[in-house]
């Protein structure tokens, strides 16, 4: 400060060392750009939490031990066979791509059929095994369908009728509907062309289901690409997704009737990284363009505008350099710092070049103009900048990693921009701006501010204060209506290709894309937890090792049961397919249809009319609502009944015999394995997602139901998981943890920033009343900001940062107004002189935040932009209305003001 107080001490230094300063600036920029290359974008929530947070630790352990990352390719279209062909083509293309090969561990098109066949009876639970024994007794269609129907009716209308349908039941039922539908469809086809009968296909359709991963309605096929790299390898991630998207694009062009997309954490991360890159650059660039136009219309020379922007960019690049050399990463909160610094940092330049331009315009030589500029405006600009920087730095005391990083990046950014404005800008003005006079062109004069100041002081003081009080009361009552959005899906970039694909998968499969994880130390522990989790209504699906490997006791018993069952089968017998069998077959297919209709009826009562099973039934059969029949379905069972009625005996016998042969082959394969199932038997891609590489840790993956659509659903799911075990982690738990931390930290950070600002104000003003007035102005602005925001949006974990930020940002305007009034100026003078700089400062800040609000692809960032745009505009409105009205009353009552002003003017003369 002494440097500036000594009338041009700093100006003299700059004047003498202008060239070395610029050279040093260029070197610093080069060094900073080099260091900025070290910055990584991190989009995961756990990157915002402290490393010792138990949920974050558990999540990190899960990522380290298990291969959970994947690229899920979804293809939509008509016809299962066509979808399978498209999936095979695309997968083959990817598998043979030499550039992709190094980064892909494997491509999984469907379940491992051999494992499923040979281990199905080992993995089945007691009831399931008992059912299978009934089904596998007789290889012919009539006895099999009879056993199947008997079993269905017993399970659903006798034993099971007392329980409501759970999500797990719904999924199993959809699978069963699909399998029986396929059998009916194949029967119809083969009865029309008996020579083509594939008995294996029929029995596999019924017992194993689809070979590929289809949606329940069969209109989407999914396959999984497992990467050989981790999510942290950012450069690889982008390269791989470019290649994958290239294959998808080529497939889309070759088959325009099919819809292709990629989802999963790899595409999502790639999209988020691209979005973060966009949010860091483009909103800031857009803000720069608008600010240049505003400056061109407002300031004295275009050259000075360019110099200010050069200094601003230099300050931001230096901040990036420091960021690269220290923290080395950007997260979803810190990614907004570019636009933030454009909005805030430019303010320092505005104050300097506004005054400098006026002096140069009056014919004062640049060195002298610079000296006077630094003397008159240097102190408030420096204090304002320091206040804002300290406010940001105060966030470094937060426990939340995201807040700490943001505080450091933004605080350092303010200081580097301040440094650039005090050294690089003046040096540029002296070296290149010597001939830049006050250009003779049309400019915005902002005279209305002086007129408003005069009218405010003479006529509107009381009405303005009363109106402001009424608005404050109204908006204060809106604040309690503010709600907090805990749904992480609303924070990230919206409408990205991965997000859209993910939403379509969610819509078709009904499983939330945000799984939770629990890592346990043994298969038995996994079984205990899986049993508990399966009873939880909000759990849609569970992947657990215990579903694949039964307990040793159960396997021992199963080995004996299987041996007994093998012996009980006996030799094949001669089956006679007569007239009675034709009628019975038709009846059993009809009975099957009835059972499927009635089971779906039952689910309608518990899951509602729009449940997936009902949709599946309507698709396979027809739309049935009570006694009413609606839209047509595929009528798979009626077609099969007609085919049975039409077929000759020879054809029926041929198809039944072929089915029996396929059935026996499959049954033999099912009974072929005599040793218990162990970890070593698991297919590699399944094992990697369930068992750690040293076979010592086991992962349970829990997918919530689609009910997790609002805060209540999120809390209910997270609460249920916490009650089961506090170690259960995942995006939902991490988001809640972060939200809780941020909500508590927001208040603490706000108070901390407020404390720092209050101390700085007291030091600057040396007046309690002036400090109280500045803080009061800020408080009213914050009430207006929050009240207005409550009417349009929800709070989230990113924009919660706005509260401490606006305290650091908004206080500046009041400082300038109070400072001017305390010098003895009336409101006309205050607002015509300080008002222009304040208005321009506020407009640039609003442009900075507005660019985030309009262009920010991360919704959290965009809502932060909206909130801070409102905050800056409310601070401006308050600083131009109630603050001057109250300040003039408080510091210079009319009678005193005239005398003091006369005295002051006398002193000046």
């Amino acid at each position, binding site marked *: 400060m002494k440097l500036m107080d000594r009338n041009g001490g700093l100006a003299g230094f700059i004047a003498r060392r202008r060239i070395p300063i610029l050279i040093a600036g260029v070197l610093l920029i080069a060094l900073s750009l080099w260091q900025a290359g070290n910055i990584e974008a991190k989009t995961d929530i756990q990157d915002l939490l402290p490393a010792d947070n138990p949920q974050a630790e558990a999540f990190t352990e899960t990522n380290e031990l298990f291969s959970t990352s994947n690229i899920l390719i979804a293809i939509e279209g008509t016809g299962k066979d066509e979808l399978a062909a498209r999936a095979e083509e695309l997968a083959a293309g990817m598998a043979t791509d030499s550039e992709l090969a190094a980064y892909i561990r494997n491509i999984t098109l469907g379940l491992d059929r051999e494992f499923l066949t040979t281990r199905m009876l080992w993995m089945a639970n007691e009831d399931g095994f008992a059912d299978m024994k009934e089904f596998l007794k007789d290889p012919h269609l009539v006895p099999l369908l009879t056993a199947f129907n008997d079993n269905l009716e017993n399970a659903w209308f*006798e034993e099971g*009728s007392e329980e409501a349908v759970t999500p797990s039941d719904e999924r199993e039922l959809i699978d069963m509907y699909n399998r029986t539908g396929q059998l009916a469809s194949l029967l119809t086809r083969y009865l029309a062309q008996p020579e083509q009968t594939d008995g294996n296909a029929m029995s596999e359709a019924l017992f194993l289901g689809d070979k590929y991963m289809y949606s329940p309605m069969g209109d989407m096929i999914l396959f999984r690409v497992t990467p050989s790299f981790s999510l942290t390898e950012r450069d690889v991630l982008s390269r791989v997704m470019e290649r994958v998207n290239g294959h998808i694009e080529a497939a889309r062009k070759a088959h325009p009737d099919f819809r292709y997309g990629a989802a999963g954490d790899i595409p999502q991360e790639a999209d988020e990284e691209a979005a973060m890159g966009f949010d860091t650059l483009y909103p800031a660039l857009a803000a720069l363009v608008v600010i240049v136009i505003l400056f061109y219309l407002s300031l004295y020379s275009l050259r000075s505008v360019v110099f200010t922007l050069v200094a601003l960019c230099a300050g931001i690049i230096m901040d990036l350099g420091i960021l690269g050399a220290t923290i080395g990463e950007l997260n979803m909160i810190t990614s907004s710092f570019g636009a933030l610094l454009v909005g805030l940092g430019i303010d320092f330049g505005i104050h300097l070049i506004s005054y400098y331009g006026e002096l140069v315009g009056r014919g004062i030589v640049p060195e002298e103009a610079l000296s006077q500029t630094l003397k008159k405006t240097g102190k408030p600009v420096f204090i304002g900048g320091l206040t804002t920087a300290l406010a940001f730095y105060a966030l470094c005391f937060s426990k939340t990693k995201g807040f700490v990083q943001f505080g450091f990046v933004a605080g350092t950014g303010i200081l580097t921009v301040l440094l650039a404005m005090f050294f690089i800008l003046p040096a540029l003005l002296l070296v290149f701006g010597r001939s830049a006079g006050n250009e003779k062109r049309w400019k915005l004069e902002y005279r209305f501010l002086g007129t408003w100041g005069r009218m405010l002081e003479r006529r509107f003081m009381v009405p303005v204060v009363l109106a402001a009080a009424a608005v404050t009361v109204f908006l204060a009552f809106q604040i309690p209506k503010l709600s907090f959005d805990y749904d992480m899906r609303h924070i990230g970039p919206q409408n990205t290709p991965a997000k859209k694909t993910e939403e379509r998968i969610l819509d078709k499969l009904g499983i939330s894309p945000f799984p939770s994880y629990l890592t346990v130390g043994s298969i038995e522990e996994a079984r205990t937890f899986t049993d508990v989790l399966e009873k939880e209504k909000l759990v849609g699906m569970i992947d657990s090792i215990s579903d694949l490997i039964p307990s040793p006791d159960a396997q021992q018993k199963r080995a004996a049961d299987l041996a007994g069952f093998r012996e009980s089968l006996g030799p094949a017998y001669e089956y006679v397919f007569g007239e009675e069998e034709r009628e019975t077959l038709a009846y059993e297919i009809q009975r099957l249809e009835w059972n499927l209709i*009635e089971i779906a*009826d039952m689910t*309608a*009562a518990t899951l*509602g009319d729009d449940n997936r099973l009902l949709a599946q039934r309507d698709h396979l059969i027809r739309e049935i609502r*009570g*006694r009413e029949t609606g839209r047509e379905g595929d009528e798979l069972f009626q077609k099969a009944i007609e085919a049975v009625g039409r077929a000759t005996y020879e054809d029926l016998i041929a198809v039944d015999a072929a089915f029996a042969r396929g059935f026996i082959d499959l049954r033999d394969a099912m009974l072929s394995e005599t040793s218990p199932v162990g970890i070593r038997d698991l297919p590699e891609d399944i094992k990697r997602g369930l068992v750690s590489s040293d076979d010592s840790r086991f992962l349970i993956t829990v997918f919530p139901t689609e009910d997790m659509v609002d805060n209540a659903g999120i809390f209910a799911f997270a609460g249920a998981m916490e009650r089961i075990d506090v170690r259960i982690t995942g995006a939902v738990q991490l988001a809640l943890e972060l939200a809780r931390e941020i909500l508590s930290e927001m208040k603490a950070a706000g108070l901390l920033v407020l404390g720092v600002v209050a101390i700085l104000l007291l030091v600057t003003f040396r007046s309690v009343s002036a400090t109280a007035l500045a803080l009061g102005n800020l408080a009213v602005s914050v009430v207006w900001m929050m009240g207005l925001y409550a009417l349009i949006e929800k709070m989230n974990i990113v924009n919660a940062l706005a509260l401490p930020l606006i305290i650091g940002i908004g206080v500046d305007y009041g400082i300038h107004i109070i400072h001017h009034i305390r010098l003895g100026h009336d409101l006309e003078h205050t607002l015509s002189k300080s008002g222009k700089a304040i208005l321009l400062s506020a407009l640039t800040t609003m442009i900075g935040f507005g660019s985030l609000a309009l262009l920010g692809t991360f919704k959290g960032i965009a809502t932060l932009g909206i909130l801070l745009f409102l905050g800056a505009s409310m601070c401006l409105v308050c600083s131009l209305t109630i603050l001057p009205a109250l300040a003039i009353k408080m510091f210079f009552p009319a009678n005193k003001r005239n005398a003091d002003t006369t005295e002051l003017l006398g002193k000046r003369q």
Partner: protein
Amino acid sequence: MKRFAQLVWILAVACTAAWAQETAREIIEKADAVRTTTSEIMTMKMDVYDRMDAATPDSSVVLESTGNSDGDSIIVFTYPRSVNGLTILSKDEGQWVYFPSTGRVRKVSGAAKSGSVQGVGGDFSYEDLGTGDWGEDYAFTLVETLESGWVLEGTPEKEDISYTKIRIMIAREDYLPRWIEYYRNGPQPVKKLLIHETKVWDGVAMPALMEMQNLEKKSRTVLTISDAKVNTPVDDGKFTAARFYR
């Protein structure tokens, strides 16, 4: 003297117990009498909440229930659309379900008596909705006398009752229950029925808004009776499974 005092004490306790038992029986008989009607035709809505704290129901059904003096009942679902016309006949000898979508009638096994009404009754089981006399099903003792009524504890006297104990609070005002706790092999109730509102239909007071809380599953089901006709003639021939086929 000591022996005489003991005798007096035993007699006093025995007399008090006998008096209390009689009182409990009287109360439950009056409560049964209040509940006894020759027929009931009710339109009701059942909202099932999967979570105790949920604000909106996870599923809802609307049904019309008809009961006769023998304790037989017919429930016809009218909402949602997919179960419109689904009918459940309950008699002493079992339950039958009629599916309008297929036109079939199914006999439901007795094992389901303790379960939810065909899976659609949420937390109400057949047993909970049954119209049998409490006095016949349970042996009651008076456990607490309140200003507003009495708390009675009942232990089952029939083998097919799935609860091991119930506690009922009978209101002095109208002899209608205000809450019932259901126990099953444990010190804590597994379910609790709350009667939030009563109404008088055709001169008979009846619960109009009931909430069954399933304390094990942490779910609840709210039953709202929107309309009722009581003691009006009902064709007893309706209460046969054969009638479904017509």
